């Protein structure tokens, strides 16, 4: 058994607008099927229209980076200098590892050629001859699918010295990681691809100027890249029209946790979060009630039921609500969930993944894990609650890469919004919810 015991469940809902996922479940990993479904036409069009046209379409699309930061893709591409002494590179970030996020998993599985086609288009747009597609090491079976797709694209002449007979060269190299969340950070990913520890680089210079092997580099999330051919095919303005203001198109939302129908759903940007949970994902499982929701992967601050009433899921609206859209990983918590335990599991992850370079992150995540472990085990004091908050606040903005913030932000959210629940763990009281009290970790 090399890949899976069964295919991951595909879900659907009438409110979905299938753009990026429209070929899922249709056998499009096969290159002939992909072509039959209209594949590679966008790349051919881009070779005719040229770089400036592509970047204008991308700008018009309001497509923003799907990795989490939400930076406008067209603008990112336009920052790459036209002339460069060093080779330019396109780098696809498929190191998907933000807890709560499994959308790229489905893209690589069902539509690997969309990733290749998007990479080619990015290459034409910035004048690069080489693209790298980096997947996390755990995704071995998906790496094999990508490698087969790349080989098939070479065999058809869609990659190589003279792609689509246009006289343009473009090569793609697939790369495997070996287990590291931090490598999802763009500069750490470049370090890893250069055969080093995944330690982030100091910025500036930004990758668009000095990136992989010192050359100007565009690095995009795999979902962003897989969206590009669709933007070109339908036109930037049409793509933008699907979404909300300044947030073009659709997004693959990974809805997980305590919902009746967890799954990856493609919904227009700005779609209401409450509807997403109660209608699209079928509501809270087991007839329980909603306690909280983590809207964009484990690094984004938790939201209360009252905060999601009228919340549209786009970068700006979720930001205004005090959280982030992040990677689109919506994690739903029911009223039987212990927030202290959830906060502990979240910080344990960041403690494990901190690369150790920046002291506030290395020490902060470790102290937070120890404090929360003790707290959850019933050995906390009232002062600890303030201390946890103080520690997290002192990590914010004090590290080279966003991992420190990714650990601190959710912690602050839990303490501020669920202080009462922390207090319920005081004075040796047993956790009112959980059964996994890990005293041994102390």
């Amino acid at each position, binding site marked *: *058994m*090399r*890949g*899976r*015991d*069964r295919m*991951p*469940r595909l879900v659907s809902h009438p409110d979905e607008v299938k753009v990026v996922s429209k070929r899922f479940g249709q056998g499009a990993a096969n290159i002939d099927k992909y072509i039959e479904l209209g594949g590679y036409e966008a790349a051919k069009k881009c070779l005719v229209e040229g770089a400036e046209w592509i970047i204008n379409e991308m700008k018009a699309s309001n497509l923003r980076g799907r990795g989490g930061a939400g930076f406008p893709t067209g603008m990112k591409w336009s920052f790459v200098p036209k002339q460069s002494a060093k*080779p330019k590179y396109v780098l696809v970030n498929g190191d*998907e*590892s*933000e*807890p*709560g*996020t*499994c959308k*790229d*998993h489905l893209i690589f599985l069902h539509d690997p050629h969309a990733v290749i086609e998007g990479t080619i288009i990015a290459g034409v747009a910035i004048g690069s001859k080489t693209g790298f597609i980096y997947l*996390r*090491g*755990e*995704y*071995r*079976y998906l790496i094999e699918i990508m490698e087969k797709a790349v080989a098939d694209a070479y065999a058809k002449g869609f990659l190589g010295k003279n792609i689509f007979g246009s006289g343009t060269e473009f090569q793609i*190299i697939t*790369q*495997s*990681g*070996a*287990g*590291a*969340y931090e490598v999802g950070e763009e500069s750490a990913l470049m370090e*890893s*691809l*250069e*055969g*080093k*520890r*995944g330690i982030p680089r100091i910025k500036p210079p930004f990758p668009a100027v000095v990136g992989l*092997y010192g050359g100007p580099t565009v690095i995009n999330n795999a979902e962003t890249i897989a969206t590009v051919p669709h933007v070109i095919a339908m036109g930037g303005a049409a793509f933008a029209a699907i979404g909300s203001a300044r947030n073009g198109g659709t997004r693959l939302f*990974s*809805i*997980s*946790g*305590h919902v009746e129908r*967890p*799954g*990856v759903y493609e919904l227009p940007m700005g779609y209401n979060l409450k509807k997403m949970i109660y209608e699209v994902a079928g509501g809270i499982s087991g007839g329980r009630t909603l306690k909280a929701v983590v809207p964009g992967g*484990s690094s984004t601050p938790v939201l209360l039921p009252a905060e999601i009433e009228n919340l549209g899921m786009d970068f700006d609206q979720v930001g205004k609500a005090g959280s982030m859209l992040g990677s689109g*990983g919506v*994690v*739903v*918590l029911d009223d039987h*969930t212990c927030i202290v335990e*959830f906060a502990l*599991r979240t910080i344990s*992850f960041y403690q*494990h993944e901190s*690369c150790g370079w920046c002291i506030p992150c290395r020490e902060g995540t470790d102290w937070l894990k120890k404090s929360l472990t003790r707290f959850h085990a019933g050995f906390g004091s009232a002062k600890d609650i303030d201390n946890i908050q103080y520690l997290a606040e002192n990590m914010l903005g004090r590290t080279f890469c966003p991992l420190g913030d990714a650990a601190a932000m959710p912690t602050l959210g839990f303490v501020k919004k669920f202080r009462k629940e922390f207090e319920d763990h005081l004075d040796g009281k047993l956790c009112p919810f959980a059964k*996994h009290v890990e005293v041994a970790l102390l």
Partner: protein
Amino acid sequence: MSPNNPNIETMSIFSPQVAARFDALVERYPVRRSALVPMLLYAQDEIGYLSDAVIAEVAQRIGITELDVRNVATYYSMLRFKPAGKFNVQVCTNISCMLRGAYDVYERFQEELGIGHKGVTADGIFSLEEVECIGACCWAPAIQVNYAFHDDLSPDAVPGLLADYRGKVNEGTGPNA
């Protein structure tokens, strides 16, 4: 074949297929050491872990010191320096899996196998690891056995799954086949 060492093929600890793959891998990138991280993982797949001999040969193939190889290898959580079981059971307990009962699944594996985190069964067939998010959040709780995903698990599914793998003990060549 490494230009630095024409004898490397005859000296290689890897199978001819893997050695040939590595010969091609180092030539693929603008710099040789870009091959390092995947090479270490593929080497581990065949040998079972990063033994001293693996580190030495990888260092030689890339053209860097063994210390440099170790420095990189210790960063990546999938890379290990001692053997795992033939079937390495990796149970995700991160948030999405935890919410859907991952710790119960993990406990059942511990009970059935009689080992804990990073333990190996006496017969060498299984090892167990609690791991971070494996990107199967919507199909939680999920695990990987070597590279194979198993989704939507419950504690009751554990004995059958282990029995299936026990039945495959004599299949395949390498530890991660």
